[in-house]
């Protein structure tokens, strides 16, 4: 059964490997050991509480077994744009109207903005290909919702996720080719690396500051606005099911959409609940490896945060019975509290209907 924990210094090699595998378009994991090392240090310091809460960046890793290697990573940026400038395009409109001329024209327009500064961002999710099974992707993504639910005071009510924008099989982004590239002639992959490398601000500062009239872009670029990369569609669908919605902002490089939800209104936060632990020793392992997890359990610890998946939940609404193995993974004993959450919003309904 998979377990998720805060990243530690020992995970650097695994992180480097995953960054290398993640490829172009994955700005939060630049394929650069030095930069990753900085990122890792910051995350470790965040979990130690050594950084101001607003500067924290929490990174989590998933392992398929208790002592297995990390096979995936995800993160939460407490407040974006605190130490640098966070840029987005807001997709708005310019209306030109004249009664005398019978003209009424709505021109979609991209406005450069820093509007999302201060929001909490969930991102940096990457799962190695062999580990893309047993709902590990869902578990990894949704562990962040449990962390948000457990420590809402550390985060903004405004929670966003930037979805990777469309690029073709060759890694070419039509939006980049139609806009960014006209302003400095580098390949999307290079621009992307620079952005992930912490140079995003520098690149952003080279981008046009005045609004961009969408019809002035090549049709291929226009069509890419707000469109996610095919590989990101499942992630988008999942976050939409958790209550996230498109908020009209897109990435300045690949025009991938930003989605947003108020922390308290995130479905996973709402459907999670805190219950007290009972432990049964010597229980048979009910989960065979093929049984997909339908529940997530997390402890209530900050530095030693843990999340595990579980095929079932023996819970009466106030107490939960965990097997010893599960309790060990969660670092809890009888009488401690854990937070539980159905993995998918619809499974909560099913469970409720069956338990009624």
């Amino acid at each position, binding site marked *: 059964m998979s377990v998720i924990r805060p990243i530690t210094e020992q995970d650097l090699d695994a992180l480097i490997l995953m960054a290398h595998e993640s490829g172009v378009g994955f700005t939060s994991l630049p394929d650069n050991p030095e930069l990753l090392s900085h990122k890792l240090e910051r995350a470790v310091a965040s979990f130690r509480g050594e950084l101001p809460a607003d500067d924290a960046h929490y990174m989590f890793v998933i392992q398929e077994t208790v002592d297995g290697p990390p096979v995936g990573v995800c993160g939460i940026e407490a407040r974006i744009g605190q130490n640098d400038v966070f840029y987005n395009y807001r997709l708005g409109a310019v209306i030109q109207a004249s009664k005398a001329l019978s003209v009424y024209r709505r021109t979609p327009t991209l406005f450069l903005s820093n509007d999302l500064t201060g929001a909490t961002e969930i991102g940096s999710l990457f799962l190695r290909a062999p580990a893309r099974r047993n709902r590990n992707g869902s578990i990894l993504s949704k562990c962040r919702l449990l962390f948000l639910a457990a420590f809402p005071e550390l985060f903004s009510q405004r929670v966003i996720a930037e979805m990777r924008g469309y690029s073709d099989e060759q890694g070419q982004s039509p939006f980049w080719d139609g806009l960014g590239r006209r302003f400095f002639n580098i390949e999307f992959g290079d621009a992307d690396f620079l952005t992930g490398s912490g140079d995003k601000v520098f690149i952003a500062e*080279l981008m*046009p500051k005045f609004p961009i009239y969408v019809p*002035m872009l090549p049709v291929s670029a226009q069509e890419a606005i707000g469109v996610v990369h095919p590989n990101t569609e499942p992630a988008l669908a999942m976050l939409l099911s958790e209550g996230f919605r498109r908020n009209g902002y897109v990435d300045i490089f690949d025009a991938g959409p930003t989605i947003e939800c108020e922390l308290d209104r995130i479905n996973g936060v709402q459907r999670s609940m805190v219950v007290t632990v009972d432990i049964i020793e010597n229980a048979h392992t009910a989960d065979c490896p093929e049984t997909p997890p339908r529940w997530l359990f997390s402890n209530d610890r900050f530095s030693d945060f843990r999340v595990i998946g579980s095929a079932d939940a023996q819970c009466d609404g106030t107490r939960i019975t965990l097997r010893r193995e599960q309790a060990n993974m969660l670092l809890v004993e009888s009488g401690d509290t854990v937070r539980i959450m159905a993995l998918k919003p619809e499974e909560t309904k099913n469970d409720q209907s069956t338990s009624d």
Partner: protein
Amino acid sequence: MWQVRPLGSEDLAAVESLLQTTTLRLSTLPDNRDKLAQSIDAAQQGFAGKDTLATLLFGLQDGDGRLQGICGIQPYAGADEPFYSYRIDELVHASRHLGINQRQTVLYLSHELTGLTSLCSFVLGSALKKTPLFHLLSRSRLLYMAAHRYAFADELICEIQGIWDDNGQSQFWKHVGELFFGMDFITADRQCALHGKTVIAELLPPYPIYNTLLPEEVQEVIARHHPATQRTIDWLQAEGMHKTRFVDPFDAGPTYRGKLEQMASMQAIQMFNSINIQESATEHSSQWLLSQGEGADFVCMMLTGYLQDGVFHCAESTMLNHGTPGLLLALEVAE
């Protein structure tokens, strides 16, 4: 004898047929009889001093009294409304950190030229353009301004037609204005004639345009003049006007600008006290532009003669009044 004089309502039909022969776009001379009649009426109000904002329209008439050309002066560009241009400017997108430094050309919508005096509405057949009649028609306006200096701004502008294709379409319009109007250049041009240029310009995109986002062939036509306007450009430059960073918001044709007092012709205009018509030319004779009269009575013609002690001695029999004063401009100035 050829002469330039204010247009009157009796010229309406002749103006209309003359406009049929030109391919130039003239928003001050709409291709619409009622609007044209209104423009001529307004001009007459202007000549009469009753409307200081009206565009003044002049006609070039041949010896048989036929209208062969038109020119105009808009005393205050935009009149009582904003006058729209795009200003070509540069922004440097630079990053010390990334070692990148790129100039970006940007078009800003501008009202800066509002209120300057605009030379406009120039219509002359291509055959006549090559003759000295070009100067009679173009420069008659300077003589008018010299005689009515108070009615004009200190600076002149002249908007030059931009590049159009053989179908009368402007690539610049197609990639800028049309995106916001949904109408092609010819239709927009017609709307300009009907509603005035400002009404249309107000619908132009309010934010700056990055040239780099325009197709290359469009970038290339910005601030380029139509070949048919070459004669006018040569003249404006000889007069001392210079090409500005301002372009027309419709076809991106260039705008020329200069101080009225510094125009070569303005500096060369002389007053004479009296005209003396004599039978034959002398060795002192040369070609002159001569104007007399104010407002609606203004007339300008090209004559051979010489100036001596404030008296203009003219070889030709003219309809000018013997013994009356006027303004003179030697034709070789700014040739």
